């Protein structure tokens, strides 16, 4: 593939073929519990996009200019978690201070995000796949968008499903997992176009 096209390929692949939720099962906990309502899913999804797109390049900078020069790569788990937690906390405080409506729609989801495995996962994938600054930003953004699409689709389906007759033992998480499986199959349909290695 053309070198200059790489960033776009990564961006596209992280949304569709390598969807962080449907191919790597990351962020399942909040996905299963929040996808009941379309409105909350929108809020959480938007918050995930924002946090992923910002913390991934931040972690890249920390890793490249702080951890590698000092030979501290093995500390990356702790450092990434601190960066994410600190950034989320700061953003939450800033939003609360300056914009009440934004806080109501987005801010209340931010604390939930610190424990979302997808955020840390994206940063760890970024290290393993040796992305550059630009590609790690696009990868973070794309993964966030992919997560957003998945949770919105799931919330829509689950709202419709309220009228359906599901066997009692299958209700709740089990049927959600079945639907997620079908969604994963649908997303696999894109995989002929581009692969994320």
């Amino acid at each position, binding site marked *: 593939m053309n070198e200059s096209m790489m960033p776009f390929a990564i961006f596209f692949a992280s949304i569709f073929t390598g969807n962080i939720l449907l191919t790597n099962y990351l962020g399942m906990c909040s996905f299963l519990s929040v996808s009941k309502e379309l409105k909350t899913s929108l809020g959480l999804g938007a918050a995930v996009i924002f946090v992923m797109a910002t913390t991934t390049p931040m972690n890249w900078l920390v890793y490249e200019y702080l951890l590698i020069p000092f030979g501290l790569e093995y500390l990356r788990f*702790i450092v990434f978690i601190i960066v994410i937690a600190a950034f989320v906390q700061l953003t939450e405080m800033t939003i609360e201070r300056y914009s009440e409506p934004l806080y109501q729609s987005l801010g209340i989801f931010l604390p939930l995000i610190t424990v979302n495995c997808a955020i840390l996962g994206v940063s760890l994938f970024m290290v393993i796949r040796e992305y550059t600054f630009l590609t790690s930003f696009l990868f973070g953004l794309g993964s966030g968008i992919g997560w957003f699409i998945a949770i919105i689709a799931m919330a829509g389906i689950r709202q419709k499903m309220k009228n359906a007759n599901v066997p009692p*033992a299958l209700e709740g998480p089990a049927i959600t997992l*079945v639907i997620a499986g079908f969604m994963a199959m649908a997303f696999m349909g894109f995989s002929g176009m581009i692969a994320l290695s």
Partner: protein
Amino acid sequence: MAKNTLRKTFIEPLGKNNPVFVQILGICSTLAVTNKLQNTLVMTLGVMFTTALSSFTLSLLRNHIPSRIRMMVETMIIATFVIIVDIVLKAFYPEMWKQLGPYVGLIITNCIIMGRVEAFALQNKPMLSLVDGLASGLGYTYVLLAIAFVRELLGTGSLWGFRILGSWWTNWSIMIMPPGGFFVLAILIWVIRETIMKEAKA
């Protein structure tokens, strides 16, 4: 009395309080490696080690941690043990380490560990917390091993890398691909709820 609580603490997470079936907690990081039994075993051992020892450590420190920063302290403790797992794997089983990739690090965000630390270790004595962590890890391990068993057997016709089913077997390659993990877990939860949970309720 003391012995009784110890036993109860150990038994409950294995059966009716199983973290995976009851709360669907902690499947995030490990479901991804359940397409092979070997990888699953290593991952779940890592989770068990981390859960047990972080519960133990936190319980030792529980009277000295200010409650406002306890989340941060918990995360640090958990991350420390995960780093140990990561370094040991890298040193002794580099092949396995490469295959597991980022998922070892993701043990940190496994909700079971945080959940046990928050819900149990903060209020209980160190030994009891250790047992609780160990049992939660064990309950988690056998569920994931069951998933991996089904996926590897149907997906590749082999177990632990050895061919089990003869050449007549057509591999269900969907099983080792991502959707397979979702389906197998869903069916497992369904079966368990239909049988065991129903009896427990009645």
